[in-house]
């Protein structure tokens, strides 16, 4: 057939590559609109963590002996991780809705870069979590949060938070693609939101009974929280930064592999 010679394969790749960023920005704009139009999302990802921070600082804080004078500084990293963990559960929900409503099929039948279908949601997760972290930080500043971190330390904090968000977002992609119901798509996040409570996020682990303490000291949140706390208070970071990074990168890689597998299974 003469038409097969019309456009060579290499050019096909080119046209798709050229549109990757514009397609991605359309996808980002779309799901950011979803977030700002859903009061439920805003309450869960920003207002609830702020309420929790108020609760810990002004209700429990007085009775908790952390060995530091400023308890807002102490809880801030843990609150941020909780906010991110609840934020990514909405990535699963949005993805699930796209698959269920047939929007995913509509996009897949269109001449857009296929990778933007998932990366659009992942990018939205990074951007929206960044926004909620900034809002939480502004409230924390009003509550007395202070940081002696250098610019380099701030960059490290941003990097670790971004990596943590990216890793958990790819975890969220898996239920988003495989869940049978809306509840199922969101349910996986509960254990993630709970993990900071059994860590050094709110109280020092040395106050815990042995079994709980062993768990708390060897799960990713403690390493991440301790690293963030050290960076934010301008103190030297311990070996824990490497533990934190290994956890984040490890979760990211494993989740990405399973997410892509779930995607290809869903698609074929």
């Amino acid at each position, binding site marked *: 057939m*003469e*038409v097969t010679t019309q*456009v060579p394969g290499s050019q096909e790749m080119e*046209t798709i590559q050229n549109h990757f960023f514009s397609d991605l920005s359309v996808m980002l704009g779309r799901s950011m*609109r979803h977030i700002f139009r859903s009061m439920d999302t805003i309450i869960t990802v920003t207002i609830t963590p702020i309420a929790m921070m108020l609760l810990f600082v002004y209700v429990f804080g007085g009775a908790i002996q952390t060995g530091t004078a400023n308890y807002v500084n102490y809880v801030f990293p843990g609150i941020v991780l909780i906010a991110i963990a609840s934020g990514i559960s909405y990535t699963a929900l949005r993805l699930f809705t796209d698959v269920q409503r047939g929007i995913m099929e509509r*996009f897949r039948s*269109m001449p*857009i870069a296929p990778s933007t279908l998932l990366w659009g949601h992942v990018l939205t997760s990074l951007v929206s979590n960044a926004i909620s972290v900034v809002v939480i930080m502004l409230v924390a500043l009003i509550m007395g949060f202070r940081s002696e971190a250098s610019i380099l330390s701030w960059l490290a904090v941003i990097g670790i938070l971004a990596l943590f968000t990216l890793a958990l977002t790819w975890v969220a992609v898996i239920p988003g693609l495989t869940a049978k119901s809306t509840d199922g798509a969101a349910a996986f996040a509960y254990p993630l939101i709970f993990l900071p409570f059994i860590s050094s996020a709110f109280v020092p682990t040395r106050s815990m009974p042995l079994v709980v303490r062993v768990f708390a000291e060897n799960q990713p949140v403690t390493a991440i929280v301790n690293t963030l706390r050290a960076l934010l208070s301008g103190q030297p970071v311990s070996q824990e930064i490497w533990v934190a990074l290994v956890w984040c990168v490890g979760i990211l890689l494993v989740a990405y592999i399973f997410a892509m597998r779930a995607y290809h299974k869903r698609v074929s």
Partner: protein
Amino acid sequence: MQNIAIQVKDLQKSYKKLNVLQGVHFTVEQGSIFALLGSNGAGKTTLIKILSTLLKQDGGTAIVNGFDVASKPAHVRKSLSLTGQFTAVDELLTGQENLIMIARLRHLTQPRQVADELLTRFGLTDAATRRVSTYSGGMRRRLDLAMSLVGKSPILFLDEPTTGLDPEARLEVWKVVKELADGGRTVFLTTQYLEEAEQLADHIAILHEGKIIASGTLGELQKLFPAASVEYVEKQPTLEEIFLAIIGKKEAQ
């Protein structure tokens, strides 16, 4: 080959042990309305998914707008537009935003203008800035169709476009489909309603148990049966005619 929009040869697809398509053949001429008729589970949706690059076939070939669906999926996607069985609209966006989004994803230069034209054409101008979650079923389907018309793809796939619609909305969809074909586009639709195929299609194929068991124009299919005999029967209005007469407003125009 210029006038052939879709060519399917010996297409096969099975899910585990279920042979959904067992060697399907047909061709669709450019600018025609082709109806694929079949009962639920006959494999209509599977076929449409393969033609629109959403599924890979196990065997056989399918050429859409001159491009092989298996080896040139990106080109096939540029040639077609799919309206799935279930309305695929974004509930949290407004009608206008839905259309602009599709126009931007199709890389059109004036997305807003394209959106407004389609809103007018589909009678959705008043609802343009309302979220789709407030739309009625018929309005959603119209928006869904409008979204498929963004970018003027030469080939349209409509998977059961009128299933679940009330009679009035169904007539509206038929009107749009006819206009599209008159404008030179090829329409490939699936339906389980005989009347729909009869009303719309230039060419009808019947898919049954994974194979095309009959194919042709309505006239050709009628010839497969014994010649019609003339009988005198008192004509009662059908319920649909009564319903439409009472609702009336469309016919009055």
